[in-house]
């Protein structure tokens, strides 16, 4: 079980400046990601859940260096990639690919599927035209489409098929890590199940490692080995998927799990309905960021920021209760 982490994140932060006034001076900052650390082992799926604005997508983008981290360290296979130059980065990017939420917005509407899938191969220097064509056909079959789709354009496909194309494109360069940012949230339930099954099969066949970012807790449980829960830029809980769902420690995780409507009429549960909204990340509460909505908040929570620590074997949480 103790395999080398494929990717390791240490004290990663990202803040965006807020500019105001006539001169556009910086008047504040949004701490989108505030000091998070975790690692993903080879072949593992780490699920990252949280509500909108909690920083889960920003985290995914920073790992690919699509966004520059404000501070912190990202290591890929033991190599620090936080300060790599663009040329060096391009080589590493081959190993890390992304699947986006909206497959329509992330596919060029003027390119045929063949061109979309061939492009990464051209960029990364596969010179043999026939080899490229072969690879593209192979990819299409892997994701459950066929050769007849090659000459079509993205608008001729349904949402589920488009997401399959997005997945095929991510696989083109045989990556090791795939960051999937809400890959199924735009799809219908019956199609969502197909795509999730496909992602699982691919992981097995190609020995992939996933960072799976989503807000749907059912989907995340189904696909993840470990789950991290984010709230206002911080990870508040991180543990094995089974642990998070059956034995949640952080009050936010508990509330989040209880808020999900279960499709079962007999299922009775104690609902924890949180009061109020998620506070603005531009002005997060002092101490524990969750104390304004926490049913168990103590005096300490208002002033002291809880440390993210291991409370049980492999179960991390940031809460003064533990």
């Amino acid at each position: 079980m103790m395999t080398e982490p494929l990717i390791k994140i240490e004290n990663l932060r990202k803040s965006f400046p807020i500019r105001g006034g006539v001169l556009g001076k910086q008047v504040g900052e949004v701490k989108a990601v505030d000091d998070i650390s975790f690692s993903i082992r080879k072949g593992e799926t780490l699920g990252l859940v949280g509500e909108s604005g909690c920083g889960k997508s920003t985290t995914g983008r920073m790992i690919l260096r699509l966004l520059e981290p404000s501070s912190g360290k990202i290591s890929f296979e033991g190599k620090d990639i936080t300060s790599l130059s663009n040329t060096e980065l391009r080589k590493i990017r081959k190993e890390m690919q992304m699947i986006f939420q909206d497959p329509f917005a992330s596919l060029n509407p003027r390119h045929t599927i063949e061109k979309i899938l061939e492009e990464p191969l051209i960029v990364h220097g596969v010179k043999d035209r026939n080899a490229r064509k072969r690879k593209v056909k192979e990819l299409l079959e892997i994701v459950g489409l066929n050769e007849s789709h090659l000459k079509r354009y993205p608008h001729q496909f349904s949402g589920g098929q488009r997401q399959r194309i997005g997945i095929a494109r991510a696989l083109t360069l045989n990556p090791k890590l795939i960051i999937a940012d809400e890959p199924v949230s735009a799809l219908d339930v019956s199609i969502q199940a197909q795509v999730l099954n496909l992602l699982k099969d691919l992981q097995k066949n190609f020995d992939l490692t996933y960072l799976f970012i989503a807000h749907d807790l059912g989907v995340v449980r189904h696909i993840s080995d470990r789950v991290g829960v984010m709230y206002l830029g911080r990870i508040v809980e991180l543990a094995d998927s089974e642990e998070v769902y059956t034995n949640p420690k952080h009050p936010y995780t508990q509330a989040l799990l209880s808020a999900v409507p279960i499709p079962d009429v007999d299922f009775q549960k104690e609902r924890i309905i949180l009061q109020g909204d998620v506070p603005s990340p531009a002005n997060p509460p002092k101490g524990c960021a969750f104390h304004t909505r926490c049913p168990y908040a103590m005096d300490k929570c208002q002033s002291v920021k809880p440390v993210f620590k291991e409370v049980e074997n492999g179960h991390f949480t940031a809460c003064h209760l533990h």
Partner: protein
Amino acid sequence: MKTTRDKTSMEEAIKVENPVLEVIGLNTSFVTDNGVIPVVNDIDFVVNRQEVVGIVGESGCGKSVTSLSIMGLVPTSNGKVDGKIIFNGENLVNRSEKRMRNIRGNEIAMIFQEPMTSLNPVFTIGDQLIEAVKIHRNWSKKKAKEHSIDMLKKVGLPRAEELMKEYPHQLSGGMRQRVMIAMAMLCEPKLLIADEPTTALDVTIQAQILDLMKKLNKETDTAIIMITHDLGVVAQMCQRIIVMYSGKIVEEADVRTLFKSPKHPYTVGLIKSIPDMRTKKDRLDSITGNVPKPGSIEFGCHFAPRCPHAFKRCLSETPELKTLQNGQKIRCFLHDDMEVAQ
């Protein structure tokens, strides 16, 4: 609460005989460059007083067009609505725009998925609420304002007086949806159509909004049609559920029957394909294929191409919606041999 009424057995009896809304043989089609496309196809259903009815289905199944047809919001330039929509004894199909304006927001109200696009960004919350009251009630501005503030408080918004002076962009998504609900409930409508009211919201906020809608449904006379793709939401909110597929109703049952013994292969597949948060399955059951485009299937059962049980007859004949003895309605040849209720 002035509208709270005790649920006596007498009222229960009246409720059954007194549907708020009866939809009979509704057909809605749109004229496009590719000809006339039927989007809603021969739909019948009833909504009783105070009932919460869920309409579920995937994108393009016609659930939203059904609600727009009821509201009389199908564009007349290229849309065509046939059949009967009987609301309070009055047929709403092809009513004059003047009469519909009278009904909309007054007797039937609607809330939409994205509250930001349904609120006017250049008017304050107060302006918009007061306008909605004044259109339908002959009240003074002061009374309308008081009523609006009351309603904001009722939907659980803090600092209601100050909110009246704020603009939609100053509120969060959950608060905006509360404002939309307040606006919809201003004139105590008999029917509230909620089209994916929580889809754009986070789960913790969704829980708050669903809780609020349940509370309002209990405290007032308002019946709710809940349109959603989320089976978890309907399991929690609705008493009766209608499942739509490709413009047709394929199954209708009370919530318990639908989740405990779904009959139509589509409903069965849909329920199975939800990743349940309580257990971890190695593989999800999925329905193969894709949702057909409206109008793309001419013959036979629309679900046949994706149905694991399809046989020859399904491809040539269209099944009828039949009522089983327990009141469950289903459109499938597989259950033809089951005794049909009179």
